[in-house]
């Protein structure tokens, strides 16, 4: 361990270049993964609140376009295993000077999932606002949504960025704005074994489709698009990181030919040189990972508190994501170093020394 650290200290400039190229790559992977995780996580949490089963319009690709008849709610409530049914209208509209804000029309029985920090739950032509958007709009008493004026009856706090930056109103008020009676039903069950209940709900009306919330989230196209985009960008960042390391390590190997020639001349095997170089890069990768993790937390905090994002971009670095990126960073170091290291270990020692000397 001492020798790689000494070598890194000796080659400070190149060590720093490798370090920063890895920090950029790892931070990019962290941020894109954390943001996509955050978006998926926020929306998933929102749907899972009081929702073992989600009911949407059959064959619709996005919950925002879903339109189902509110009257089905009573028929679902009569199914024996059903504990409660929440009706929601999911929409987005300009609010005052903000170009797009999440608007949630909800049935009265869902109000208590919004924890009020001031005021009361809304009556007709009233709304409650998430704390973030309430602050952004300078604590308004009234707001205009789609040319209609609503009184602000209360403010709630939510860990879900879409809600904290959104506006909640009664379902019938939402219905007037978005011209639909309901977007989705969220059904909570007495007994979590839901298979029969799903079949029962699906038999009620051919225009609706019931799924477990988990199944819906796993197959939700928007999440797949976000996840795939995130994976592609992460893969590109990984590749850029690897290429950065390969090019830097090629320069390092070039600078240190004499050193490797000497090692070979005293009988150190090729694998010692490979292990030594890989160990050096892994050490850099570990420090770069720690730095990138800290940097990502700072950037995510800044994004979360940047007004123009309205709290909708809410990065989430979970332990499993952190662990995955740690192994990715180490892998990046190994893959990026192997090629130059193998080259350095295979050349005749004398060629290394002569090429390095002149």
């Amino acid at each position: 361990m001492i020798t790689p650290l000494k070598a890194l200290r000796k080659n400070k400039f190149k060590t720093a270049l490798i370090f920063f190229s890895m920090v950029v790559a790892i931070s990019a992977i962290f941020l894109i993964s954390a943001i996509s995780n955050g978006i998926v996580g926020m929306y998933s949490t929102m749907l899972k609140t009081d929702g073992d089963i989600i009911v949407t319009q059959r064959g619709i690709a996005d919950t925002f376009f879903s339109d189902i008849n509110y009257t089905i709610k009573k028929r679902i409530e009569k199914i024996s295993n059903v504990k409660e049914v929440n009706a929601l209208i999911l929409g987005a509209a300009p609010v005052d000077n903000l170009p797009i804000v999440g608007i949630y029309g909800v049935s009265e029985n869902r109000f208590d999932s919004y924890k009020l920090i001031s005021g009361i739950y809304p009556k007709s032509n009233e709304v409650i606002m998430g704390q973030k958007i309430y602050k952004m709009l300078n604590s308004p008493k009234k707001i205009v949504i789609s040319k209609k004026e609503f009184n602000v009856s209360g403010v709630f706090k939510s860990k879900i960025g879409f809600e904290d930056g959104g506006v909640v109103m009664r379902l019938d008020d939402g219905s007037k704005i978005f011209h639909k009676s309901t977007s989705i039903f969220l059904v909570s069950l007495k007994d979590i074994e839901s298979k029969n209940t799903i079949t029962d709900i699906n038999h009620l009306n051919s225009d609706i489709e019931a799924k477990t919330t988990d199944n819906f989230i796993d197959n939700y196209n928007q999440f797949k698009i976000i996840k795939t985009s995130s994976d592609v960008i992460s893969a590109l960042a990984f590749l850029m990181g690897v290429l950065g390391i390969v090019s830097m390590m090629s320069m390092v190997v070039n600078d240190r030919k004499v050193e490797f020639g000497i090692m070979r001349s005293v009988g150190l095997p090729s694998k010692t040189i490979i292990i030594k170089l890989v160990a050096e890069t892994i050490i850099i990768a570990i420090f770069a990972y720690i730095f990138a993790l800290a940097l990502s937390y700072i950037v995510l905090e800044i994004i979360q508190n940047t007004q123009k994002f309205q709290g909708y971009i809410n990065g989430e670095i979970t332990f499993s994501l952190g662990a995955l990126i740690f192994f990715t960073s180490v892998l990046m170091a190994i893959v990026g170093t192997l090629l130059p290291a193998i080259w350095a270990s295979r050349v005749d020692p004398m060629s290394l020394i002569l090429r390095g000397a002149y």
Partner: protein
Amino acid sequence: MTLRANNIEHFYGSEHILHNISLEIMPKKITAIIGESGSGKTTLLAILSSLLKPTRGTIYYDDILLSNIKNIDLFRKKNIGFVFQFHYLIDYLTLKENIALGALKESDNIEELIKTLGISNLANRYGNEVSGGERQRAAIARALVNSPSFVFADEPTGNLDTKNAIGVFELFRNFKDTSFIVATHDKKIIDYADIIIEMEDGYVKNISSQRT
């Protein structure tokens, strides 16, 4: 251990560096390979010491064909030491760490070597903190750490003044069980060699013995 080279040819690209060289290095002798710059001394030394593969020809250490040795690194570690003109100590290691770099586990003569070579008080210093002569002594200690049969030295006195240069050869004389093969164009120190191999334009021009 005797070293035999048979019909060695070597090219760098299309440049023919060594021409059909055959020779034998006797054990426990100091052999000087002399010749002008560009005569092929360094290339021959590198090939004889296994640091460079010849384009054609064979090298035997006793009856062992060098190209047949599977673990050439271990063979080199046990039997061959190398001293370079520019010392080539690894600069982020102390003199002692440089000397121990290729030491076999069973090598227990590092302290003794350091003492014999007169660098005991410098052992924990780095290469850039000591003089050229002291660096060269450390490089020689590194070559001798596993008590090899052969030590190859390429212009070992090239960067030293006369006093230090003679000191190096006197040091070589202290290690009587080791054969030293030295490439040099320093005429002052040729007198210390037992055998002289003269090279010219990649050919061995003459081999002569100075002592019996």
